[in-house]
C-alpha cells in the first residue's frame, strides 16, 4: 500500500535561510501522524509547503501517489488535502456559517454541503448554537473548533492541523484532541503539528520529532512517548 502522503527529501528555504533540511516522512491512510518539535523547528513551514502556500527548493511531495509540489494551492484543496492554518485564521467578521461555507469553497455539490454543515454542527454543537454570530467574538477554543470544522468542509482525505492546542485551556485542549480521534474514526487521515508533545503523541499512530529543520526521531506514538530523549526534551521530565 502506498502512503496517502509521502515527503521525500523536502527542502524549503526562505532566501538563504534553509528552514526545512531534506526531510522525508509519510502518512498512511487512516492514521493520525504527529509532527512535534519546538518553535522554529520547521513544522509550520513543512505544512505550508505541503498545502502549496510555499514552494520547496528541493525534494518531492506525493499525495495519493501524485506529485503535488508544483500544483497551485487551490488545486491541492480540491484534491482532498485541507489545511487548518497556524493561529486558526478564521474570518473574524464573517459568521460561523459563512466561515464554514467558505471552507467548502472548492465544492459544487450544494445539497451535500448543507448536509456537511449539519455534520459540522453535530461535531461541535456550540457552532450550531451560534451559527449567525461573527466568528471574531468567539473564544480561542471555539475559534479552533470553527477552524477545524471549516477545514473539514472541503471533505478532505487528509486534514492537516497546525498547532490546534495553541493558547487553549487544558479542558478545551482535551476536547479538541478527542475531536481529532473522532475525525479519525470517521475515516479522515490527520497530520497533526504540535508543540504539546504529550497530547499529540498520545493520540498518534506514528510520530516524528523535528529539530531545526531535521527529523531526529520517529516511531509510533507510544514509542516516542516512552523515549528518554523525548521525555527530557519535550515532556519536561528528568
Amino acid at each position, binding site marked *: 500500500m502506498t502512503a496517502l502522503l509521502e515527503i521525500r527529501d523536502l527542502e524549503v528555504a526562505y532566501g538563504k535561510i534553509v528552514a526545512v533540511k531534506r526531510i522525508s516522512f509519510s502518512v498512511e491512510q487512516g492514521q493520525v501522524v504527529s509532527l512535534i518539535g519546538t518553535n522554529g523547528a520547521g513544522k509550520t513551514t513543512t505544512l505550508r509547503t505541503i498545502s502549496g502556500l510555499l514552494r520547496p527548493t528541493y525534494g518531492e511531495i506525493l499525495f495519493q501517489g501524485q506529485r503535488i509540489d508544483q500544483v497551485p494551492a487551490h488545486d491541492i484543496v480540491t484534491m482532498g488535502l485541507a489545511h487548518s492554518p497556524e493561529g486558526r485564521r478564521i474570518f473574524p467578521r464573517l459568521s460561523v*456559517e459563512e466561515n464554514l461555507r467558505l471552507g467548502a469553497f472548492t465544492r459544487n455539490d450544494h445539497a451535500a454541503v448543507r448536509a456537511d454543515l449539519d455534520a459540522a454542527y453535530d461535531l461541535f454543537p456550540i457552532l450550531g448554537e451560534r451559527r449567525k454570530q461573527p466568528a471574531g467574538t468567539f473564544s480561542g477554543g471555539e475559534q479552533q473548533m470553527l477552524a477545524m470544522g471549516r477545514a473539514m468542509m472541503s471533505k478532505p482525505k487528509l486534514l492537516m492541523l497546525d498547532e490546534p492546542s495553541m493558547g487553549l485551556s487544558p479542558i478545551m485542549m482535551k476536547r479538541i484532541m478527542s475531536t481529532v480521534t473522532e475525525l479519525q474514526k470517521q475515516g479522515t487521515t490527520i497530520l497533526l503539528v504540535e508543540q504539546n508533545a504529550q497530547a499529540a503523541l498520545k493520540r498518534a499512530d506514528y510520530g516524528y520529532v523535528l529539530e531545526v529543520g531535521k527529523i531526529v526521531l520517529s516511531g509510533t506514538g507510544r514509542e516516542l512517548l516512552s523515549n528518554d530523549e523525548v521525555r527530557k526534551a519535550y515532556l519536561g521530565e528528568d
Partner: protein
Amino acid sequence: MSEVKTQPADSVVAQPAENRVAWPLGIAGVVLLIAGSFLSWSYDRKILGDLSIIGNPGGLQRLTIIGAVLSLVLLLAVKGPLTSKIGPWLDAALGLRAFGAGLTLYMVLILVAIGTESDGLINVDPGAYISLAGAILLLVSSRLLPLRQLNDLSKARVAGWAEILAIAVTMAAILFGAAYALGLTDAWSFIVCLVFFATVVTVMFRTGTLSWFGHVAQRHKKVLTLAAFVVAFFFPFTQNGSDANMSIATQVLIFAATAMGLNIVVGLAGLLDLGYIAFLGSGAYVAAMLSESAFATINWHPPFPIVVLLGACTAATLGLIIGSPTLRVSGDYLAIVTLGFGEIFRLTMFNLDGTNGPLLTNGPNGIPGIPELQIGGFNFGDPHTIAGIELGRFSNYYFLLLLLIGFVILVFSRLNDSRIGRGWVAIREDEKAAEAMGVNVFGLKILAFAIGAFLAGLAGTIKAHQDVAVSPDQYIFLESAFLLAAIVLGGMGTIAGVLLGATILKLLPEKLRFFSEYRLLMFGLLLVLMMRFRPEGLVASRRRQLEFHEEDEELAVAIESELVEEAR
C-alpha cells in the same frame, strides 16, 4: 420637556401636563406654513423662480406645502386619527424635530436668498415671514413633544401590494423631485431645494421609514430595480426637449457606469486602483482612432459593435498587463503601480503625436470632430419625437448609456452573488486563509481587475462619441480620485450607493458652477465628514457596516442573520 425614551408605546395618551401646548402649537405651525405659502414671498419676480403670486404657490412654495402636509401626518400620528394605526411604528417626534429644524433652515435660506439677490430684506413679503413663523412654531412644538419607545419598524409587515406601491410612490417622487431640481436654473433655488430634499431624507431616517424602506427594497429587489429603470427611462420625457439637463444626465451616467465598474475592483475584490480612468481613456481613444473623424489616425472604420469590443478588450489587456506582476504583492504596491499607470497612460497619449512617437493620438490636441454614433441605420445625432415630446441628441445617448449601466449592474450583481463573489469576500477578509480554503487568490484578483478594465473600456467607446473629442487632459488623476470618492461616499460594494455617490459627485458641480473654485475643498470636507460620521457610506452594504462597527455585537448578530438567511 421630557426626553425619556423609555415610556412604553401604550402610554402615549397619558402625556405629561406641560406638553399639552405642544401639539396645538405644531398644528398652528403647519397652518401658518401652508397659509404663508399661498401668499407672496417677495416683490421681486426674478428671485427663486416667481414667488410673488398670491393664491398660486410657486415651486419652492409648493415644496413648503409638501413639507407642511407631511409634518401634519406626523402630528396626527402623535395624537389624532392616525395614532392607533401608525403611531406606534413611526418615531414621529424625532421626525417632527427634523422637519422643524429643516424647514426653519429652509425658510431662513430663502430669506437670505431674497435679501442677497435683490438689495435687502425689504423685498421680502409677509408670506415668507408667516411661513418662517410656522416653521419655527413647528420646531418649538417638536421639541416639546415627548419621545416614545416604538415598535421596530423594520419588523412591520404590510401587504405585498402596499410595499410595491410604496416603492412605486417613492420612485415617482424621486423622478419628479429630480426633474424639478434639475429644472432649477439659479443656484439659490437649487441649494434651497437640496435643503428640502435633505430634510425629507433626514425625516425618513429619523422616523425609521428609511430603514423600513430598505427592508422593503430588500424583499422586492426586482421590483425596485425595474422601478428605478422605469424612472430613469422616463426622465428624458420630463425635459421638454431641452438638452441642457440631458447633457448633464449623460455625463452622470457615464461617470456612474465607470464607478460601478471600479466598484467591482474596489468594492468586491478589495483592490485599490488609483488609475482606473486610464481604462476609460483607452476605450475612448480606441473609439476615436477608429472613428470617421478627420483627425482619426487609423484608416480603418469598423462598425461600432466591433469598436466597442476592441475598446473593451484593449482596456482589459492593459489591465492584465498591469495586474499580473502587481497583484501578487500586497495592496499598497498595487495602489502605487496603478497610480503610476494612470499617469503613464496620460503621458503616452500626450506623446504619441508623430514627433515624440508614432502618430496615433495627435498628442495634446487629441482627436476632435468624432462623428455621431451610428448603429445600423440609427444616427444618435438625430432628434426624435415620441408622444409629442422631442428627444434630442443627448437623449439618444442617454438611453444607450442606460443600457450600458444596466449591463454593468447585471455583471456586478451576478458576480457578487456567485462563487467568485464569495471568493472575493474571503480574499478581502484574509488573503492567506482564503488561499488555504482553496480560493484561487491571484486568479480571482486578476479577474476582478480585467473585468473592471473591460467595463471601463466599454464605457469609454461611447464616451468618445458623446464627448465628440478625446484629449489627454480628460484623463487626469483627479478623475480617478473622483471615481473612488463616489464609491466611498455612496457605499463600497453596493449598487444603489455607488449610483447615488456618482450622481452627487457629478451633478452638484454641474449645478453649482459658481462654486467650482471651491469644488475640491468641498469634496474634501464632505469626505472627511463622511469618514467621521458614516464611514460605511451613504448606502451601507451590510457587511461593510460590520467592518466599521466591529464592537457593536448586537448589530453584528442582526446583520449576520440577514446574510445567512440570504445565503440559504
